[in-house]
């Protein structure tokens, strides 16, 4: 659906030049929710704004469907942009217009007949659950409601792609979840391709299928969320994940706390249905080793449940080896963390 090739964006010229994107390559499939995560200043906003040419790329290609966005005339670009919805961190609603008029705005730009505008706006109000608020002005709404208006406005023209620039960063955790649920819902119902950027791993974990980690204008890691999340390769990625789920120094202390002669500490990862089965206890019953759980998470990535436990096995070293083998046989991932 979206192919980004060697995308470079340099702001300014001469000595003041600053290259925000240094050759980005991405492939985003139709119907996918694709997340881009990165620290402040990594180039996330620049990247998403290059997709609909709010920012003119310095070089490279951005192909949506079959159209290379970088090669369009002004009029063609305006036309293409109607196929791409966008929502913003600060909502960017017209404060002088009502909720209804805000949602009608993109339709009226193309002189949609009045009855059609009315039908579509009502459908959108329904979709985002704001039917009673149609006549209010944005100033009379909460942040979450404003973002719902933003979503309704972005979807009114039936776009193929929705771009979300930190769409939940100005919202509290509960409201964030409700907006994320709405996005997921829309993605399923309408088969919409969603590209979102964020600095919160939680957002990626909740709704994304794929994730790219951006740092200093370069994509340093990319893949299905479950893989990147459970086996992060880059320090930045680990950093994003650890901040939310683990506390590294507490773990180190726990690992060092053993007095047993023979002990091995491993990270055991369960994915999918395995998460809720009693594999660990059955295995140690067979092999006769003891274990202590030093740290653990049972959670979900989008719909997939997963568990990640840091376990220390104690006992006869041959028994421990057998235990680890048994766990691997049962399709658990086992990674040694050092004795």
């Amino acid at each position, binding site marked *: 659906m979206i192919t980004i090739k060697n995308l470079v964006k340099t702001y300014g010229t001469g000595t003041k030049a600053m290259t925000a994107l240094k050759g980005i390559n991405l492939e985003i499939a139709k119907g996918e929710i694709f997340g881009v995560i990165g620290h402040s200043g990594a180039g996330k906003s620049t990247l998403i704004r290059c997709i609909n040419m709010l920012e003119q790329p310095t070089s490279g290609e951005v192909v949506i469907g079959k159209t290379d966005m970088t090669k369009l005339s002004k009029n063609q670009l305006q036309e293409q*942009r*109607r196929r791409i919805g966008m929502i913003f961190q600060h909502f960017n609603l*017209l*404060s002088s217009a009502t909720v209804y008029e805000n949602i009608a705005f993109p339709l009226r*730009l193309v002189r949609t007949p009045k009855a059609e505008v009315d039908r579509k706006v009502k459908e959108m109000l329904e979709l985002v659950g704001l039917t009673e608020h149609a006549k209010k002005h944005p*100033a009379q709404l909460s942040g979450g409601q404003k973002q719902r208006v933003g979503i309704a406005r972005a979807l009114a023209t039936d776009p193929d792609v929705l771009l979300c620039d930190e769409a939940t960063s100005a919202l509290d955790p509960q409201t964030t979840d409700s907006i994320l649920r709405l996005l997921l819902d829309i993605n399923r119902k309408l088969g919409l391709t969603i590209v979102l950027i964020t600095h919160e791993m939680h957002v990626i974990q909740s709704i994304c299928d794929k994730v790219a980690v951006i740092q200093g204008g370069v994509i340093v890691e990319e893949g299905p969320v479950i893989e990147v999340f459970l086996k992060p390769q880059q320090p930045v990625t680990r950093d994003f994940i650890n901040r939310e789920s683990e506390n590294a120094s507490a773990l180190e202390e726990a690992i060092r706390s053993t007095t047993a002669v023979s002990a091995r500490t491993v990270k055991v990862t369960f994915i999918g249905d395995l998460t809720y089965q009693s594999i660990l206890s059955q295995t140690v019953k067979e092999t006769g080793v003891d274990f202590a759980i030093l740290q653990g998470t049972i959670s979900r990535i989008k719909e997939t449940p997963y568990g990640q436990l840091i376990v220390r096995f104690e006992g006869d070293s041959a028994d421990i080896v057998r235990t680890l083998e048994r766990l691997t046989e049962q399709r658990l991932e086992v990674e040694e963390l050092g004795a």
Partner: protein
Amino acid sequence: MNKELDFSQVNWTEFGKATNATLQMLGYSSLFTLLLGLPIGIILFLTARSSSVGARTVYSILAFVVNLLRSVPFIILIIALLPFTKFIVDTQIGVRGMIPPLVIGAAPFFARLVETSLREVDRGVIEAAQSMGASTRQIVFRVILPEALPGLIAGFTITIITLISYTAMSGLVGGGGLGQLAVSYGYNRYETSVMLVALVIIVIMVQIIQMIGDRLVTHFTRK
């Protein structure tokens, strides 16, 4: 100043006529100032932000002319514009003769106020419209002007009030209206009462216009 304040000297019919003349000058000059100043303000706003060299040249020239006209004292502007005024309205005095200098004096001022209030429109909202495929024209008429409306009304109110003081000044050079009444009776013939009445009427006009302006601003403010 040995005459007592004696309102019996005041010729009320003449005051009626003068007030009427002032209101006419004010009405026409406000209208033309709006029609001239608003587009200039919009052009200033659009060309200032543009990255194209052509647009920035337009901005530099326009901004120079606007600054030039704004730095000329109004009374000198009237005199300097006499030939132009004659050419446009075929007279140099009275209500008609005052309208060109009033408009040329006030329009640059109003244009700057327009530019300033347009700049205050949230950039994000403009970008949102761009992202929906709005053309520059649609962005101006459907986003920037409605969003800036309270600021535009406030700016226009200030402009009308400035025009009131200009019309009073134009009395010095045969502009007619309350200003001329105040000058010819109050100043030349020491009839203080006439000057006072003229002053009171002008103050009342200013107050009413400011009040209406403020009400409209409040009505259209949605923040």
